[in-house]
């Protein structure tokens, strides 16, 4: 199992978000990566937490800071990759994998196939920001800026086109040992292709390992607890 980190990129700088509401600045992306690389972080997912008001110009500005990044750690990138125009801007970035969310919810096969041709099927990840409300599971549809019922999502489409699925616990983002495992109940995703993020702590890592989860992405607050990555890896060995 891989142990990586989620890094949120907003207005060309990194932030820590709590429950998708409070935002705390973490500084320049290169500084964040330098720290993560020192901990031998297995992978980093750079996510732009954008909504329906994202523009190509904002996307272009964020892309520029990613382009200038010097890193030898595997990187996934996503957030606002919604058209072929966006996709063209991603060429020759220091990234291996692409994260799509709205494109999967809208079943944008043309965009995802174009990404597959450029990066390969192994590079395509689907991000599903999820919550439970009144006993039902909902997915946040970023480009529409609203939650939609999980039942309305075409799981077969995701399983066909995505190499891995990132399940993001929105409510517990920024917390520790609070990942809501009930979110995974009844989901038709192979655990070997499932990545979890949001509130992941040491206990969650042990549970993830026991359940054969592909990867866990720890919120980037770990930057303020410098022992964490090695501690988390130790937790995996013990589980």
């Amino acid at each position, binding site marked *: 199992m891989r142990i990586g980190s989620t890094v949120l990129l907003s207005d060309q700088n990194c932030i820590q978000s709590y429950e998708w509401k409070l935002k705390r600045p973490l500084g320049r992306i290169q500084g964040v990566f330098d720290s993560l690389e020192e901990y031998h972080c297995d992978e980093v997912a750079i996510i732009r937490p954008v909504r329906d008001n994202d523009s190509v110009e904002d996307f272009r500005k964020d892309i520029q800071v990613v382009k200038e990044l010097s890193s030898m750690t595997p990187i996934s990138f996503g957030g606002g990759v919604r058209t072929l125009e966006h996709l063209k801007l991603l060429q020759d970035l*220091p990234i291996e994998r692409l994260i799509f969310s709205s494109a999967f919810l809208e079943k944008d096969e043309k965009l995802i196939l174009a990404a597959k041709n450029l990066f390969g099927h192994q590079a395509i990840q689907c991000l599903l920001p999820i919550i439970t409300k009144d006993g039902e599971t909902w997915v946040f549809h970023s480009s529409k800026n609203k939650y939609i019922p999980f039942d309305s999502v075409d799981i077969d489409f995701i399983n066909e086109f995505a190499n891995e699925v990132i399940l993001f616990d929105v409510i517990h983002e920024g917390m520790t040992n609070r990942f809501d495992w009930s979110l995974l109940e009844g989901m038709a995703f192979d655990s070997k292709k499932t990545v979890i993020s949001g509130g992941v702590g040491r206990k969650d890592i042990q549970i993830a390992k026991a359940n054969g989860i592909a990867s866990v992405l720890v919120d980037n607050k770990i930057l303020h607890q410098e022992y964490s990555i090695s501690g988390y890896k130790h937790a995996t060995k013990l589980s």
Partner: protein
Amino acid sequence: MKVDILDIGSGNISSIKNWLQKANISTRVVKNAQHIESELLILPGVGSAGSYMDRLIDGNYDVAIREHLNKGGRLLGICLGFQIMTKYSEEDGGVNCLGLIDGHVERIGSGKSHNGWEPLQFRTDDMNEQLFHNQYKLTKKRVLNGRVFYNHEYGVINKEDKSFSTPVSTDFPQYDGLFVKDKIIGIQFHPEKSQITGLDLISMIL
């Protein structure tokens, strides 16, 4: 040492460049097939085999790669860049590849993918029969013992005699993770994203 990175319009060129620069090796990115003029040519590989081979042929890169080898140049292929050195790939319904290596590429298993870190150990002395190894003595280190990052759904079945190779992992022993034959080296993992082991590797094999 002259190192060219072939840019055919897809691939993580900046990561490869960053990897070599961190190992204090200067590089040149080549977009035109006629401009290849180096001791070592690197084929980065990102994408799917069908579209990658189409781009190679459309840009006459396939001819230029063979000429580079015929002139005594060394060739290093990474991930898909390694896979397309074989005779054919099962990807995209079947694709004829460059045929520089006796072998083929197959899906590592229906619905399977291999994304993660694996250990890599070898001694440079084991490569002594190959022309490629450690020509520039960038390091005195002879034993590599580290971990490397894989992200692939297809693997190389190597049928070459007298090549040096290491398997991808204990779970995928039939596929080559590192391959060296004469002046060709193929790497299934991503050395440019394998942190300190990636740097050790390039210093030890060049």
